[in-house]
């Protein structure tokens, strides 16, 4: 996380100060889905899928977005691609605001070209009636403006080669491929227009473990080859450990902890992150970890709890002050990298504090 104190101050004043390195920044993004009801289909409520999220993505960096099902990871991806509209906040790509809530901004093909996506289920994200050459050629035809059949075929063949598929696969239909091959086709489609950012929405969760490793290594190779930035959405912690540089842990539409891989895996500071990491299966039966088992269910995002969204299930809520009342604060954790933050509340007793913690925002 590169929001320094100054940046946050500036943000409050509406001034953006960004590094040249930062390719995409998301500021206070909120995406609510309306609940329609009644005879006239009026809005009678909102699902707060993403509720105030800010982060920066640097060039050639991989951010892992971790959290349980339904916490809003995929909605962030969909908002970035303008598949759903943002309710609040804005998204800045290379210094240019591309999405701003309640304002019409150009989200034209030149931006679509730069931000592409790999979907969760490779089987469902390929049109079963289209040949591979047409599927991968679609962004070439629409975004790059290639119109000659031969040129498209040639470029698609090149793309297939980069994802280790063969020329004779050009004229086949998606159902003739295995799961791993389908995911390669999806990746080839995402690569078609030389994008800068690829959003990977659980690209490995539908595949078996040996194929997962192939796909992850392919993604790493492509990142080096084409200077890509990844936003990697997953719930698989070992996958994220393998591929990501930084991790954002999400809970109920909000970040609860952010930091580098080492920060999160060696010094998890938020109670939710600790519970998440303790739930990870281990291979060594000698290590008998104390599993932190959370009580209850994830609260409904239609009517989230007041204060900290995690407080009804938090195992250490007694030690903190004002959990159900105050909004969680942005707290810097010292000791690891300088990008390790949690969103929590201060302890009731002074001596139990985080080592060297400091509040960044209220």
């Amino acid at each position, binding site marked *: 996380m590169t929001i320094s104190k100054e940046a946050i101050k500036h943000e409050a004043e509406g001034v953006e100060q960004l590094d040249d390195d930062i390719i995409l920044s998301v500021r206070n993004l909120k995406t609510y889905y309306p609940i329609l009801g009644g005879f006239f*289909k009026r809005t009678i409520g909102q699902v707060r899928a993403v509720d105030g999220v800010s982060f920066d993505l640097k060039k050639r960096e991989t951010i892992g977005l971790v959290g349980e099902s339904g916490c809003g990871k995929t909605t962030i991806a969909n908002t970035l691609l303008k598949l759903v509209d943002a309710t609040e906040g804005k998204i800045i790509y290379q210094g240019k605001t591309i999405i701003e809530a309640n304002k019409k901004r150009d989200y034209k093909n030149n931006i*679509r070209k730069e931000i592409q996506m790999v979907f969760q289920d490779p089987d469902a994200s390929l*049109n079963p*009636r289209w*040949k591979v050459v047409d599927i991968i050629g679609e962004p070439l035809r*629409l975004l790059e403006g290639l119109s000659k059949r031969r040129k498209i075929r040639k470029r698609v063949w090149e793309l297939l080669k980069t994802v280790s598929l063969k020329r*004779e696969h050009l004229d086949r*239909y998606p159902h003739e491929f295995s799961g791993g091959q389908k995911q390669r086709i999806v990746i080839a489609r995402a690569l078609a227009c030389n994008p800068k950012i690829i959003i990977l929405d659980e690209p490995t969760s539908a595949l078996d473990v040996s194929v997962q490793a192939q796909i992850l290594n392919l993604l790493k190779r492509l990142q080096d080859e084409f200077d890509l930035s990844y936003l990697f959405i997953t719930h698989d912690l070992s996958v994220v450990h393998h591929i990501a540089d930084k991790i954002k842990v999400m809970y109920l539409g909000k970040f609860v902890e952010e930091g580098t891989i080492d920060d999160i895996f060696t010094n998890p500071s938020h109670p939710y992150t600790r519970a998440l990491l303790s739930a990870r299966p281990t291979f060594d039966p000698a290590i008998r970890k104390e599993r932190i088992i959370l009580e209850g269910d994830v609260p409904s995002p239609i009517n989230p709890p007041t204060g900290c969204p995690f407080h009804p299930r938090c195992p250490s809520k007694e030690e903190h002050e004002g959990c159900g009342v105050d909004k969680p604060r942005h707290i810097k954790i010292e000791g690891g990298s300088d990008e390790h933050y949690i969103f929590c509340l201060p302890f009731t007793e002074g001596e139990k504090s985080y080592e060297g913690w400091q509040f960044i925002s209220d």
Partner: protein
Amino acid sequence: MLEQEVYEIKEEDEIKKLGLITKNIIKWVINNLKFIFIPAYKLNALVEKEEKHERTVSKRKFIRRFKSFLTILGIILVFAVVTMAVFPHWLAPYTEADASGVFPGTWANPSPEHPLGTTSFGRDVLTRLIFGARTSLIVALPAIGLSVILGVIIGIIAAFYGGWLDTVIMRLMDILLAFPGLILALVFISVFTDLFKTDVRIEYIMLAWGILGVPFYSRLIRGSVLQAKELPYIQAARVAGAGNFRIMFKHILPNVIQPIIISVTFDIGGIILSLAGLSFLGFSDPQLIDWGNEISRTRERLYDAPWASLFPGFFILLSVLGFMLLGDGLRDALDPRLRDL
């Protein structure tokens, strides 16, 4: 029932395969062992050759998948009926005037002069059948075409955009569906005759049945589109830069057209028969010769002159069968997943 047919076709193929098993073994050996004998530097050439082979012989080609026995039978039947509709003057033994003239020999048996017998006023059944093909097809095909094109467009737009547009369009369609078909057809035809100040013409019948079919097809396609538009490949198409219309008609339509093809083939026969209902009520040109009309006029003599009503019925059966087989083959050929390639 259609599933059953597909299954049977597959079984036939299997029997054929069993017969060719020795040939297949030899082919397999050649195909798999040739890699041993081909030097490595020629592998690229081999890949190119394989690709060429796949392009020409592969069943991925539409035409390849279209070629099955039943489909070809369907094509032949449709071709025969269409030929009768297009060239009746060359095919019929008598002229069009003779077909509605008055001659001696009413309700005569089949004979060398009248191969399928005669109907009332000594008119030749075969001649009337051949001239009737034209009327029947001219009404049925454009009417179906109109219903399918309008219905599909309206249904896809309603389902894709949803919201109030969907509600308005679908309520309008419900209103059309609420009336009995024949009565609404009568209303439409009389409105058209008043509007254009002419007698009943065949175009009005065509138009009336065309409009009547629209709600059925739009309802049929709406459900499938509602299902298909939520699938990830539609989102993927949007990310690839496709606009609304491209998504509707290039990405969604090929995936939802199957049930439409099936019901088109069934509906053709229904429309041919419905012409008889209209002329029975007097809402048709009495000079028109068509198959449905033939059946309804001659059915009172079913026992002493069965040929007069049996053969028109047989021709309706043949043409419906032809269109059904053709539609079945078309559906199979359009779905790349159905056949093993």
